[in-house]
């Protein structure tokens, strides 16, 4: 890293960046102020780095003792009893519910979100494009607790017939087999999560779609492509990395969503039969932790929940890091 202050970051266009020597001031106060301000700015940056590192370190530190006492296999057990002298807990069921619900959410939110982004950038009449974008963003502004409340009271009764239909027609397939759960199923959690992450997919896709080089678009149209063919051959290929990273960010959000899921989930009784069905109940990492927030009274119990949180942290970290790498690649590619 350079010792000399330089005005523009890599992001602003480099050629117009002033030479570092220009920013010096012969008056002593200038130099001193520079050093202080630079220190403050750099310090804040380092603070952010330290915070993320601390999150990982602290969670690990608190989780390890509890994990050491765990008498079941942490990764492959479905049990969850964290108190007493013989704690047995594992994350298999949490992992299954979390990942499955998130995958369902992505399967719905990705196509719909991309279509909405295409609608806003390519199809909507000029007067509608901006309000439409604002409305979809509004969906992101609704607090997640409201989604939970609405999901449980209003949406769940309306969605039940769909599940019944799927179970009737496709019940022979293990994923759709009927269960006795009448509250929130994994399938239902997936749908609610889809609604919640839709604005993320849309907002980011919209941005890359709007940046499609005009020459590509006009070239396709000049060759006689229909509007849809133009989109398929220029906008979508150009936007693909952006859409992928949007999907990863949305997936990260879906994995970690807490309160809406906590409202919706139907907790399974301990020791209940394992089922592959999407219409089964089950808790996600976040909802298990939130539901048992009152139980954090001994280091062992707390440690068990923190270890579940640690797995969630690692999951979202990986997903976000992958998204970041995809974005970086695209940047290198388009410059």
């Amino acid at each position: 890293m350079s010792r000399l202050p330089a005005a523009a970051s890599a992001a602003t266009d480099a050629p117009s960046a002033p030479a570092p020597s220009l920013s010096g001031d012969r008056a002593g106060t200038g130099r001193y102020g520079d050093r202080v301000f630079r220190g403050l700015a750099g310090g804040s940056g380092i603070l952010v780095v330290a915070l993320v590192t601390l999150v990982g370190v602290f969670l690990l530190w608190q989780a390890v003792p509890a994990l050491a006492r765990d008498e079941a296999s942490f990764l492959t057990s479905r049990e969850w009893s964290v108190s007493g002298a013989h704690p047995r807990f594992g994350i298999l069921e949490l992992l299954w519910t979390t990942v499955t619900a998130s995958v369902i959410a992505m399967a719905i939110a990705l196509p719909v979100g991309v279509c909405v982004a295409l609608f806003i950038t390519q199809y909507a009449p000029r007067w509608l494009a901006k309000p439409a974008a604002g409305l979809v963003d509004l969906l992101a502004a609704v607090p997640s607790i409201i989604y939970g409340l609405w999901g449980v009271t209003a949406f769940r009764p309306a969605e039940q017939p769909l599940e019944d239909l799927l179970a009737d027609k496709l019940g022979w397939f293990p994923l759709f087999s009927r269960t006795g759960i009448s509250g929130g199923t994994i399938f239902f959690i997936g749908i609610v999560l889809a609604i919640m992450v839709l604005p993320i997919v849309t907002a980011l896709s919209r941005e890359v779609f709007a940046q499609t080089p005009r020459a590509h678009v006009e070239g396709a149209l000049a060759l006689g492509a229909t509007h849809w063919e133009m989109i398929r051959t220029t906008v979508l290929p150009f936007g693909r990395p952006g859409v992928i990273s949007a999907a990863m960010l949305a997936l990260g959000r879906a994995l970690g969503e807490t309160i809406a899921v906590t409202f919706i989930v139907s907790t399974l009784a301990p020791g209940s039969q394992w089922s592959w069905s999407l219409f089964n109940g089950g808790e996600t990492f976040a909802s298990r932790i939130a539901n048992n927030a009152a139980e954090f009274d001994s280091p062992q119990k707390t440690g068990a929940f923190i270890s579940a949180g640690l797995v969630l942290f690692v999951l979202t970290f990986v997903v976000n890091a992958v998204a970041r790498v995809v974005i970086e690649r695209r940047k290198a590619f388009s410059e």
Partner: protein
Amino acid sequence: MTPLRVETPASKAPPSGTPSSGPRPGATARAPLASALAPRARGRVLRDHAARVVMWAAFALALAPLVWILWTVVSKGSHLLLESQWWTHSQRGITSRREGGGAVHAIQGTLIQGAATAAIAVPVAVLTAVYLVEYGRGKLARVVSFMVDILTGIPSIVAALFVYAIWVTTFGFQRVGFAVVLSLVLLMVPTVVRSTEEMLKLVPNELREASYALGVPKWKTIVKVVLPTAFSGIVTGVLLGLARVMGETAPLLILGPYTKSIATDLFAGYMPTLPTMINQDRNELAQSAAADRVWAAALTLILLVLLLNLAGRLVARFGSVKK
């Protein structure tokens, strides 16, 4: 931000030649030729129409839940909000079966925690953004930028667990409002960093150069020229970030238990907030008094968040960086 509009003539004369752009030449190369063939052309036109219908349908599908949610909350929650008691009383001494009481304790708690969060998060976030845009070069800047991304993606429950691990387990403090504030800071910093960064990048370099040419030191240039130019954009980012953290519930579940009376001390005692007020009675929805209160609190929260969003957008509209 503004979507690039593409003018699309309904039909164009099919020119000859192969497409110069488009990574799937096989698909496009045949298209112009095919327009000469009538059945094939009809298929293309049909597909084009179908795509248009699908896009409109997707938009309608995306709006449906928004309308539905707002309708549900407004229709079920509005009547309590019209009573003056809602804005002047707390829930002190009122059981979930009894009607009456207000939400002033929860509104106060949410506002206090929001303000405290902003007071801590904004300086850190703005300085980090200044570092990234004005100073950041090389490895450290890349690491900081990467970590901001990771912080953006941290689930709120993990942030809450982290603060719990430090505040309660390690230091043995009580669960007080300030612990909640700390976890909310973790969630607010990255959103403000990102929005501020975008705004700082929009400040024209000519302004910086003009300032340096006059012999103004770098820090003064940033404080007196760059930041004021980007001010409204930064305010917008702060308001949107604030709207987000005020609606957060997960950290409150773990760090900020609910109480029915007014509490304004961040460092002692439990502090009620709107999300925890909703959460408190969520298992009592069969009781009409409790259900009414839950929906009214939900509507209050939505109004608060939307108000902040609206304010953010207004600031953005009336004071954007001029090029």
